């Protein structure tokens, strides 16, 4: 399987408020090139919002975002998002298009590959996630696990430098979770830079290179998984871990 040309990702002092509701209150996060960071924390702590701020689906009020060491806040946000793949909890496949068209659409329209080239590329990505044989069906005919695989293939087809996973297994039946987590882990070992927002503590512990614990819009504690899961320093992290483990 091909290696990725991934990049490092840094968020500096990121702030975001909706009116008086402060969702992010000075987040600092750094993900080394080719490593995976897991973001954990209670619901409403701002984990999913952090992802959307770092690919500028939502513009931060304050702070900076660096991709491969270079600030991207002045770039065209659409072009930035072409370099950052994103996978959602609810898959969000386009139901009116076939599986292969879901994957081929962005390379065809945004990278201006020909229809044949983008289809070939899409088929190769579907091959990677084991669904080449489903290329010409509609997403609605697939199981949740299969849909999420297609969503991952769709994001990879743009050859991103970083991948975001926003609770990618939360909407899946329990027995389908493992397969998707294994696929994400495989991307990690192929050298993809990843930010994985997850409730799967086992995954955060075994696969992530670093773990970031968020609460109330702040990074409360971060470090290598061993440290976070066995030697938590803060009360809040200890309390959170005692509830979820």
């Amino acid at each position: 399987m091909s290696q990725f040309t991934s990049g490092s990702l840094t968020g500096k002092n990121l702030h975001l408020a909706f009116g008086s509701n402060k969702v992010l209150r000075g987040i600092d996060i750094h993900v080394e090139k080719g490593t995976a960071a897991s973001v954990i924390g209670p619901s409403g702590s701002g984990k999913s919002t952090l992802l959307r701020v770092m690919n500028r689906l939502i513009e931060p009020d304050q702070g900076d975002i660096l991709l491969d060491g270079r600030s991207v806040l002045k770039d065209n946000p659409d072009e930035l998002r072409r370099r950052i793949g994103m996978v959602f909890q609810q898959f969000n496949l386009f139901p009116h298009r076939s599986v292969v068209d879901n994957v081929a659409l962005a390379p065809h329209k945004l990278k201006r590959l020909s229809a044949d080239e983008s289809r070939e590329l899409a088929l190769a990505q579907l091959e990677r996630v084991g669904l080449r044989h489903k290329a010409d069906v509609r997403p609605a005919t697939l199981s949740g696990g299969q849909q999420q695989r297609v969503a991952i293939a769709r994001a990879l087809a743009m050859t991103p430098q970083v991948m975001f996973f926003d609770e990618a297994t939360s909407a899946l039946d329990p027995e389908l979770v493992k397969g998707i987590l294994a696929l994400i882990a495989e991307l990690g070992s192929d050298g993809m830079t990843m930010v994985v927002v997850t409730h799967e503590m086992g995954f955060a512990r075994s696969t992530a290179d670093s773990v970031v614990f968020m609460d109330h819009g702040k990074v409360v504690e971060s470090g290598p998984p061993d440290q976070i899961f066995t030697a938590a320093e803060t009360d809040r992290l200890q309390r959170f871990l005692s509830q979820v483990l």
Partner: protein
Amino acid sequence: MDAWSRLADTFLNWGYIAEVLPTMFSYGLLNTIVLALTSGLIGTILGILLALMGISRNPVARWIARIYTDIFRGLPAVLVILVIGLGFGPLLKDLAGIRSPYPLGIIALSLMAAAYIGEIFRSGIQSVDKGQLEASRALGFGYGPSMRMIVVPQGIRRVLPALMNQFIALIKESSLVFTLGLMSRERELFQIGQDFAANNGNQSPLVAAAIFYLALTIPLTHLVNYIDNRLRTGKEQKHEPDEAAAVIGKGAHA
């Protein structure tokens, strides 16, 4: 003649019906269809425009769409047709040399249809899951292309039945152009029936018109139900169990 046969003669006098049928077939039916189709087409184009304005991020565009829709949905159809048909008649004559109020009737019907069709499209587009726009933006598509390629096509698909109903309403409302005093070749089903009925003091020509309308609207109504059903059950395609689930043998089948 007793009361029953007098009643039968009033509504089902075959002589009168036979007399009015050739006129209805030769241009009444055509005029009704032309009125409904052209105003349906113009109304759809204007309606899409209104819907896009209605969901626009520009507040001025949203307000214009809102006010337009409120006005044209809030007025009786016959009033709009009369005001536009008679009021703009002289202008049309001066500008284009057209004396017939027929085009103005089409415009009045189109403007009203646009208000309803605009609301149908707007609600359809807004009913598309927000995740669709987000996924498209996350891939790197701009707002405009995302709406055009992903959101709007899904919105339009699910409002097809409502659109067809609007077209059925137009077939019926096209009868109101009779208030504009059209020339004989421009008359549609209802007015032809009404003219014959008035001239002969017998309602049978109107019954003939009614049969024409029902022949148009009933099949369309059932077509709408059919499409509606297809759209509903089309979504419930069979789900395939995941390979992993199939091994364990539960969950995806449930």
